[in-house]
């Protein structure tokens, strides 16, 4: 607990991403099991003690501190955990001796809503102020210290010099305190045995393709082209009869799409676009642009639900348009080329029911000019654009240059990260409705920072505004008058007309008419675009 509290304290006062990585990595190397595993669980937000909520501590405080003094203090400090840790009476009669994190976990897990008010004070009395702060953050979750799950995992990979994609892969199959993960990474043991578990494998991702890159000699003959569908990227995993559906960030969304859980009859891991049936994207089923899918809006009605009604299942049935296969009946195909995997996928298709699966068509084009013509034609068909996949490329997690490209149609779109929010005016004056977003100034996994690139206050519905406002309030890091700096958790797909160089902005560029095209609740921030992608679009 002592060391964890020191780590949090140091993280709170560090703004540089690299310094944060160093601090966490050092902690992970120097702290024994299982404490470091519990710390990782806390930093990645994968810890939950149902009997202990922020309100539990609020109530404890109100028994000890005059309510008026409590709320004046809480208002000034701006954080319940910190206010409580500052106001908890130091008890000189009790020797402070901080328990280990493992002991804290044992104690907290054993609590019930009834026993918590009597047991928590005993724990708090053993701690000093910064340890109380750490304990309350640990117990209630939501650290809000500017450390994302991705950053924590990156620090883990740096601490033990293991690839972050492997960490990511094992992570989803293991539970806190991740004993097997540390045994492998820190102590040189065998890799965790995860084959038998229906776990998520990190996605292979695409770079935006710019016209510039075409001139620089991307040879179309080396690539296969597909439509870029406007749904959500999913991975369907079946192992030993158990099926799970994962979103782009590796979240288990099986419960949201129950109709997909008993239609995969063979053990496999497949990659595709989840959409609902309709005739908006590409027109009717079987059209020259494949067709058969509804708009993203139609799909959106089904996202984020924990249970699904029969009516919804009937009105908006989901299906997966497959474009890759990673594992098939015990064989790992990821080392094979795209062509080999495509062949395996095509051979495998007849064993899947048409009702829930189809195969993403390939798009034939003579050359880039022809392909560009085809891409221009996608606008009326509500298709986002085209994907280019290198025929001889293996399936490599992450975003490796030159292997996969996304070639979106106009308007220009870019994925940015929400950084600041400001209150609107008039009807919106109680909402944080003006958003400043940024792009990475390099590789986010090797210490790049976000630079603001633009500001937008339109392109979302009232319901979305409510959700955004709530997120801003929940993830505030700093307040500057009407502006709040938020934790980097949310990706906006920003549409804009053009981009120009600008001396007024630190990023050196300014977007024209940026608006929020879509809120990517599903997309991890490190996958947002880089400044250089935006810069390559400058047409001054």
């Amino acid at each position: 607990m002592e060391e964890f509290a020191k780590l949090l304290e140091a993280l709170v006062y560090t703004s540089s991403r690299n310094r944060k990585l160093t601090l966490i990595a050092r902690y992970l190397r120097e702290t024994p099991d299982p404490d470091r595993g519990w710390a990782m669980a806390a930093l990645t937000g994968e810890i939950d003690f149902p009997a202990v909520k922020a309100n539990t501590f609020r109530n404890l405080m109100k028994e000890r501190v005059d309510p008026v003094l409590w709320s004046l203090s809480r208002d000034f400090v701006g954080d319940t955990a910190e206010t409580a840790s500052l106001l908890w009476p130091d008890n000189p009669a009790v020797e402070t001796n901080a328990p280990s994190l493992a002991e804290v976990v044992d104690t907290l897990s054993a609590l019930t809503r009834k026993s918590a008010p009597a047991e928590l004070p005993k724990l708090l009395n053993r701690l000093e102020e910064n340890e109380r702060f750490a304990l309350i953050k640990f117990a209630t979750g939501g650290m809000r210290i500017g450390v994302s799950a991705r950053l924590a995992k990156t620090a883990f990979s740096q601490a033990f010099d293991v690839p972050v994609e492997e960490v990511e892969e094992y992570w989803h199959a293991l539970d806190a305190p991740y004993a097997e993960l540390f045994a492998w990474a820190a102590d040189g043991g065998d890799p965790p045995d995860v084959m038998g578990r229906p776990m998520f494998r990190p996605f292979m991702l695409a770079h935006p393709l710019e016209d510039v890159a075409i001139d620089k000699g991307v040879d179309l003959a080396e690539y296969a082209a597909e439509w870029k569908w406007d749904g959500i990227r999913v991975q369907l995993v079946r192992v030993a009869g158990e099926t799970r559906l994962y979103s782009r960030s590796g979240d288990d969304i099986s419960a949201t799409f129950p109709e997909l859980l008993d239609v995969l009859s063979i053990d496999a891991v497949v990659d595709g676009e989840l959409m609902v049936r309709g005739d908006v994207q590409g027109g009717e089923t079987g059209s020259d642009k494949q067709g058969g899918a509804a708009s993203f809006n139609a799909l959106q009605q089904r996202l984020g639900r924990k249970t699904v009604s029969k009516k919804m299942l009937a009105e908006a049935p989901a299906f997966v348009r497959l474009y890759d296969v990673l594992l098939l009946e015990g064989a790992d195909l990821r080392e094979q080329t795209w062509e080999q995997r495509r062949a395996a996928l095509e051979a495998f298709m007849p064993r899947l029911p048409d009702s829930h699966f189809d195969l993403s068509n390939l798009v034939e084009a003579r050359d880039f000019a022809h392909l560009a013509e085809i891409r221009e034609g996608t606008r009326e068909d509500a298709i986002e654009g085209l994907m280019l996949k290198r025929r001889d490329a293996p399936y490599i997690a992450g975003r490796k240059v030159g292997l996969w490209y996304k070639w979106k149609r106009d308007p220009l779109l870019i994925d940015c990260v929400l950084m600041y929010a400001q209150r609107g005016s008039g009807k919106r004056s109680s909402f944080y409705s003006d958003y400043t977003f940024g792009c990475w100034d390099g590789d986010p996994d090797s210490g790049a920072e976000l630079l603001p690139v633009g500001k937008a206050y339109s392109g979302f519905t009232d319901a979305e505004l409510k959700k955004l406002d709530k997120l801003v309030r929940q993830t505030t890091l700093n307040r500057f008058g009407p502006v709040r700096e938020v934790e980097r958790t949310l990706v906006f797909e920003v549409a804009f007309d053009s981009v120009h160089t600008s001396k007024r902005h630190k990023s050196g560029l300014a977007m024209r008419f940026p608006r929020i095209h879509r809120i990517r609740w599903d997309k991890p921030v490190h996958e947002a675009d880089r400044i250089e992608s935006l810069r390559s679009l400058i047409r001054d």
Partner: protein
Amino acid sequence: MSAPFSWIRPEPWGIHIVPADCWVDPGRAVDKALVTHGHADHARGGHGETYATPETLAIMALRYRTGAADDAGEIPHKAMPVEYGETVRLSGGVDATYIPAGHVLGSAQVLLEHAGERVIITGDYKRRADPTCKPFEVTPCDIFITEATFGLPVFTHPPIEDEMAKLLQALTDHPDQCVLVGAYALGKAQRVIAELRAAGHTQPIYLHGAMEKMCRLYEEHGVNLGELRLVADAEKNDMRGHIIIAPPSAMNTTWSRRLPDPITAMASGWMRVRQRARQRGVELPLVISDHADWNELTRTIEEVDPTETWITHGREEALLRWCELGQRKARALALVGREDEDE
């Protein structure tokens, strides 16, 4: 005979002693002023007669030229030195006595007596030991007019030794960098230096130019600060492994670019709250204050035990609530222009 205490009247910009037509820490130029200490929000230039301790007058003389009209055309003040413990008779039968307040060099509480009634105006104060000034003295009175800069129960200043240890540890941990400590130029800077010396730190300490004169003034008043050097005269690399002290306002300016890899520290009572520290980009918060913390404020009111407590500035709501809970009579004066952001 007039109503009790009608001779003392709080106005938004100062406290008026009616029979003497004299003001305590007025926020605008007046003919006759009683000044508690040298901080700008209490001591302004341009008064006529200015009653203050010799140390405070010396500090004011540094800031506002005396003897001739200054560039801004302000009226030069006439220095009226009052020693600690000395009582001066003002007109209208008012006696004023200056009592140490423990805030900064020369800081005083002013005890006012008139018609058998006693009023103390504390100015700013603290109860902790401070090698650079005389400690606060508890003095009985009827009305106690106190500050409340840190008047919230979350503010408890830790022992200064702990904060010094943190600062010196950072220096040891990062011998190739330097630690830039933001500290108020009057009082805080000199206290930090004196405490560093007391903790056995004998290395030279580098100063921002704005600190120099005030440090010299402290030394002239018998506060030994050890070897001080100016950043302006130093080579960048010579400052590695050393402590640099600068006013908070200079910390994020281009001036700081001449420092070798500074770790940003700040010596302030506000550093107790993480958010405050983060807002200012502080990496090493040092909770060091020249104001009373919550426990000192409440203990002082209990010890002085006045019939009435008036609160001049700060977070008065919470202190009022505390008085109410203890059934003490209290009121907030809400004086303007008294906020110690850089405290």
